[in-house]
């Protein structure tokens, strides 16, 4: 039993690491895409929006398989961890870009106009005026997305990456006790996600209390 718990905890560690890495990767990607779309105008949107829509309109599982199997077909086989990181980052990037873009566009136009009117550059207006006002909307939504991401890492199971769900499968194969194993695994995920859920609610309430948060996305 002790051995198995240790094995699950190692899987948990991978799950946490992968979640954080993919959140960072998705954050950078999502931010870039959102800024490109807000600053770049209609031709950038013409190119970027279909890409975002394809990622949001197809299953993460298929995306993970596409990165993993696709990379080996194309001759640069990614290892499971890298493939999972890339696949999850792309997926997270698409969703986060929509969260960030939605928040940026929720800031009244008058703010941008006022900034431009006093001669600030477009870049500075977005960075220095719009973004800070969008932040109270972005933070809780992005935190909520992080919880989804932690759960989504379980799909990396299909690539053979030894994260928590895969670790559970190995134990089930050995002990032939799937029920208890998966219940324990569920509780571990719960222990990871639930405190974050509570935190999101608290942060959300605080921001709303301060009157900073605009309508939720």
């Amino acid at each position: 039993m002790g051995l198995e718990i240790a094995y699950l905890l190692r899987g948990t560690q991978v799950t946490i690491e992968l979640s954080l890495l993919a959140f960072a990767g998705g954050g950078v990607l999502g931010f870039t895409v959102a800024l490109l779309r807000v600053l770049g105008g209609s031709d950038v949107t013409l190119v970027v929006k279909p890409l975002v829509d394809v990622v949001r309109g197809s299953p993460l599982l298929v995306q993970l398989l596409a990165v993993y199997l696709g990379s080996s077909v194309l001759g640069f086989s990614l290892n499971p961890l890298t493939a999972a990181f890339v696949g999850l980052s792309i997926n997270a990037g698409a969703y986060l870009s929509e969260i960030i873009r939605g928040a940026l566009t929720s800031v009244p136009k008058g703010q941008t106009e006022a900034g431009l009117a006093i001669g600030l550059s477009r870049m500075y207006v977005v960075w220095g005026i719009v973004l800070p006002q969008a932040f109270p909307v972005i933070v809780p939504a992005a935190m909520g997305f992080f919880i989804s991401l932690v759960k989504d890492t379980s799909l990396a199971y299909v690539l053979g990456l030894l994260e928590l769900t895969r670790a559970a499968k190995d134990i089930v194969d050995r002990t032939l006790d799937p029920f208890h194993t998966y219940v324990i695994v569920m509780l571990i995920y719960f222990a990871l996600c639930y405190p974050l859920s509570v935190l999101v609610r608290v942060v959300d309430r605080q921001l709303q209390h301060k009157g900073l948060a605009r309508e939720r996305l």
Partner: protein
Amino acid sequence: MIELVIAHIGEFFSGFKITLVIALGAMLGGSLLGVLTAIFRLSRVGPLRMLSLSYIELIRNTPGLVQLLLVYLGLPEFGIRFSPLGATILALTINNGAYLAEIFRAGLQSVPKGQLEAAAAIGLPRTATLIEVVLPQALLAIYPSLTNQFIQTVLFSSIGALIGTVELTQVALILNTQTYRTIEILAALSLMYVGISAVIASASHRLGVRLERRYH
């Protein structure tokens, strides 16, 4: 890519049908479960509130895949066996129910108090008030969220492939092992899902415009 899809259109179509069966089943079952849970969640009876809250939090804070594996592999330990398709529908129904419960709760709470008072003032009993007055308005308020949840359910139904349900993704994976034309197959598969999502989104949008015109 196109000839590959056309050559195997029969398999893809049967996979598509199974995907729809899973998603529709999970939406219908999940809606029943979700409405009930939402009503419990707003109930004055403490234990009912606790029960619904525990269910919502447990499901929403754990991966759907683990829930699926627990249903498919764990329940047989108690002699409860499902086919891969049955397990997929059941697990996704349970999963969906928790998310839908929160959507329905928001919908129920969005109905103005005056509507309840107007129903009470003509002596309408509680059940009739719920069915005739509250639910229709709640549905109207949340149908964009329901649409989104339906799309998410279609996409998430792909995890059925991991226990051998022959839905759309599994069809593609089987085809991959036969033809090794991985990139084309996965690209085609993605586009099919994108197409399904787009059809659902636009149908919902059209319905929304019609409802909006009807009531305002």
